[in-house]
């Protein structure tokens, strides 16, 4: 996968993440993490090292647009990229339930990592309350959007491979 394409997708995801809650105000604590979905998507197709690097890039972009310190999401997404990149060979990518499970797992892991990093800076939150109000609905939304993205991406890939085969037959 070309670095430029990955960077463009990550940037577009973060911009969408900033703009969308402004347009569609469904529920204050619900945030669809497009950047996280993109990181998981790429990590399921790359090795652990590239996945970690993609995670760092995606996380840094989120950090730059967020109200907190730089590095919180970079650290979180790098670890997620590395974990998903390591486990990608064991994930059956044709099964949407498996993909949804990976995205939900990544959302939970991200929340735990961010929560702990913020706690190190003295920002105390009620994790269980936040989990019920924000993390859980956001993870469910991420899974739905993530599976849709996977489905679209697979169709595009199929169409491209059909065109490629047609031109080489």
């Amino acid at each position, binding site marked *: 996968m070309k670095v430029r394409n990955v960077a463009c997708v990550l940037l577009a995801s973060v*911009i969408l993440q900033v703009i969308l*809650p402004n347009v569609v105000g469904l529920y204050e604590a619900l945030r669809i993490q497009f950047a996280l979905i993109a990181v998981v998507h790429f990590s399921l197709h790359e090795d652990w090292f590239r996945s970690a690097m993609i995670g760092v890039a995606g996380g840094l972009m989120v950090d730059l647009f967020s109200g907190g310190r*730089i590095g919180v999401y970079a650290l979180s997404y790098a670890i997620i990229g590395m974990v998903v990149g390591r486990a990608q060979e064991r994930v059956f990518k044709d099964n949407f339930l498996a993909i949804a499970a990976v995205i939900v797992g990544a959302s939970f892991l991200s929340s735990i990592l961010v929560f702990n990093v*913020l706690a190190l800076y003295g*920002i105390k939150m009620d994790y269980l309350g936040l989990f019920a109000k924000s993390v859980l609905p956001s993870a469910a939304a991420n899974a739905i959007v993530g599976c849709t993205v996977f489905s679209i991406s697979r169709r595009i890939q199929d169409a491209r491979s059909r065109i490629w085969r047609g031109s080489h037959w």
Partner: protein
Amino acid sequence: MSGKRRRIAIVVTFVAIFVFLSLPWSVSRSVKGVVTGLFTPLFSVCRSVTDKLSEIWKVTFHGDNIVRENLRKERELLELRLKLAQEREKIRELSSLHSQLEEVAEGGFEVILARVIGREPDSWYQTLLIDRGAKDGVKNGVAVVHGENLVGRVIEVGGRWSRVRLILDVGSAVSAVTGNGDVPGIVIGSGPGELKMTLIRHNARVKVNDVVVTTHLSPVLTQEAPLPPGLVIGKIVGVSQEEEGLYQSALLESKVDFRHLSEVLAVVPK
């Protein structure tokens, strides 16, 4: 890349992340300011497009094109209410002759209308981006309101943009008093959509439905600039009394619909 080199690269990357994390807040803020400034025009364009679409939708299906007019009226009303609140505050505190209060009362405020062009990408922080900045007269620390209700405080200012920390954010702390002005406390964000008034004297009489408003005093702990007095923060919906504690706390509910904020007002001291 060989396995050893990869491991070294990963270690270097993580060290770099920890360096970023330990950067002073001012450095972090200025780096982010540059990036936010670059993308503000894009956010503004997106906002204009969605506003136009929503206007077309409203005019076509609801015939509702008086929203903007209402906002103008709201602005005028707010200016009058602010003046009134200042006068009340002046009368209440006249005996103590606070020099700070005099300054606020004589200075007055300028109200700047701003559009919300972006939100926090995740729900850990509660901030929003507005399309007015230093060039429009917005300053760091000023109050941002919707109607007469407090929305938050400006924490970062760029040329044509500002970042507002909502009162719901866990890092937010606002000096407050109950409507009749005799029970002081600090209002903090305590999770998504929740507001809590803390440090209320143990023997103070607070009850459900009491309105909580801002006061001119700034929280000593946060050392933030004082807000204009009399802005409504919320209504008390629950009080928790601790038997042996020194303080009591109250849960508040704001009138502001934070999900659908499209335009806000920045209240800048003159």
